[in-house]
């Protein structure tokens, strides 16, 4: 049973600090997603867990065992690389069996394991092909197959779907989810795509500049973001953030505004109404029709622009004056440091 514990992890490359103190608890069998903008240190953190990079400070425990000085191969982890890293001179069979072979597993046992994994991933007919003879999705499966055959305690995925086209990405996403359900192994998955994170994760870890911004279930992150960064990173299109003064215009509020400096409201929570007194007013500058809904770009009187999702049929014209409203429940308040805050009741 394998949990993973990170305590005060730091990583420097020379003088560049890439990971700046990460504490994290990952439970057995959990599907954890590291998400954050490109360059924030997701891959580095994953490579630290795998042992491919050596930590500068802190402790890593895998299955309650301190692994700071343990060789990557002895940590019981398997990794699926963004580039797949399939050896071009080996067949699918040999790629999948490589790790078992260097670990001196007998040939028949090896064959059995490879066949097993191939069956799970529907690779049976491709075993004698070379990676260059496979499509992107098939390569992706081989990379996963290679990780499966070793029966690792923890799977590590580094943006495994980012080289696939949109349709295949959705498909592979569901396959990975199914794989997790069947194996029930701890999985750590890195992506910069918040939709992937939301759909796959039991627990999301939002990273920024080598620090954890928030840890929580997808629902927690969506409903209770800890700060503006998380609020805007999770959810699409991203949350509108307006000066706190706008809040009373959007909804009836029982409390004073302090200490809030700004208010956030998601485009899908804005309701378009007739312009009127006491209501946030703006002018439609652009209407993007997507079929199911229309995305309205609204220029507010104070110069801010905000996005609203409009799902009714009759569309406001560009240039039309409209009013915006929201439910008080859907407003998020942030203090001057961008941290989430509650309004003081008086």
């Amino acid at each position: 049973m394998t949990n993973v514990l990170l305590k005060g992890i730091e990583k420097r490359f020379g003088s560049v600090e890439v990971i700046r103190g990460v504490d994290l608890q990952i439970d057995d069998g959990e599907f954890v997603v590291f998400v954050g903008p490109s360059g924030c240190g997701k891959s580095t953190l994953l490579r630290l867990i795998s042992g491919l990079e050596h930590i500068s400070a802190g402790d890593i425990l895998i299955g309650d065992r301190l692994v700071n000085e343990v060789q990557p191969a002895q940590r019981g982890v398997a990794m699926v690389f963004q580039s797949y890293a399939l050896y071009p001179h080996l067949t699918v069979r040999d790629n999948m069996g490589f790790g078992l072979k260097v670990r001196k597993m007998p040939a028949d046992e090896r064959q059995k394991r490879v066949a097993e994994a191939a069956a799970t991933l529907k690779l049976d007919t491709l075993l004698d092909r070379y990676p260059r003879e496979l499509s992107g999705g098939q390569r992706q499966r081989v990379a996963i197959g290679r990780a499966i055959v070793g029966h690792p305690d923890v799977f590590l995925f580094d943006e495994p779907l980012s080289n696939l086209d949109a349709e295949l990405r959705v498909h592979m996403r569901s396959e990975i989810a199914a794989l997790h359900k069947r194996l029930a192994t701890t999985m750590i998955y890195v992506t910069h795509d918040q939709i992937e994170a939301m759909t796959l994760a039991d627990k999301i870890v939002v990273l920024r500049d080598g620090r954890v911004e928030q840890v929580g279930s997808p629902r927690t992150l969506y409903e209770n973001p800890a700060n503006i960064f998380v609020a805007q990173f999770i959810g699409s299109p991203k949350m509108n953030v307006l000066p706190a003064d706008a809040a009373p215009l959007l909804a009836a509020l029982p409390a004073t505004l302090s200490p809030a400096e700004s208010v956030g409201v998601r485009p899908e929570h804005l309701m378009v109404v007739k312009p009127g007194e006491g209501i946030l007013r703006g002018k439609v500058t652009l209407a993007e029709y997507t079929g199911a809904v229309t995305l309205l770009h609204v220029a507010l009187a104070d110069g801010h622009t905000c996005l609203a999702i409009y799902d009714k049929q009759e569309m406001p014209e560009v240039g039309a004056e409209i009013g915006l409203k929201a439910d008080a429940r859907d407003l998020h308040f942030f203090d001057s440091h961008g941290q989430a805050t509650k309004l003081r009741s008086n």
Partner: protein
Amino acid sequence: MTQRQTQILYRTCWTIALLIVAIPFMFPFVWMVSAGFKSTTEIFGAPTLIPRVWRWQNFIEVFTYQPFARQYFNSLYIAILVTVLTLIISSLAGYALARMRFAGAGLLMLFLISALMVPEEVTIIPNFFLIRSMGLVDTHWPLILLPTFGPQGVMATFLMRQYFLALPKELEDAGKMDGLSRFGVWWRIALPMSRPALAAVAIITFLSSWNLFLEPLIFLSSLEMFTLPLALSNFNDSYGLPLWNLQLAATTLAVVPILIVYLIAQRQIIESFALSGVKG
């Protein structure tokens, strides 16, 4: 031991091993300079790294023993001339082979590829008679013509062709739309974009002309016409035995400037050789 310590130990071992291997690569240069300053007696005495007596005289005798300054100049101007000629000719031909369609292009490519591999020793005999019939023996012409049009020039042509092929064609098309002729496109657009390849060709051509030996040996007979490598091999006494201190002083004079340029531009020079790939 922690991983970090193992790694440091591993690195240290490698570095020490590399330092040992580096000795025969560096030491000849050091010893060459040192011996160039020694007297004949000291050269054969107990080995000393720093000469006991600095004999600057050697460096004067180098110039009186044979017309070394003249020979130095010969090498320099020939190398520059060959480099310039090769740059022009190879970039013209390379451009045509990369960008133009013409009758005989395929055949020309085939011939050039075969020429790439044929050593100059194979054609040197007929070339000797050709040059002799032109009345160019004991002139610098063969040292200029043979490398420019031989395997060296062909290699330069290939290098340029490869580079031109990799350039985006849109820029040249834009040039054509602006009314440039083929020649104008080559001169104003393709060449300025190919500086790395031109630099590589220049570096490799210059060095190979500077170090050329077989052709000078065969075609040159008067001391004033000699180039450096031939002159260096010629510091012998009347019994044909080497005058070591003079020879090493002269070698120092020939090698050190090149080494200094190499140390300054090592990155560029090494990359040029990597780019050309073929040679050896």
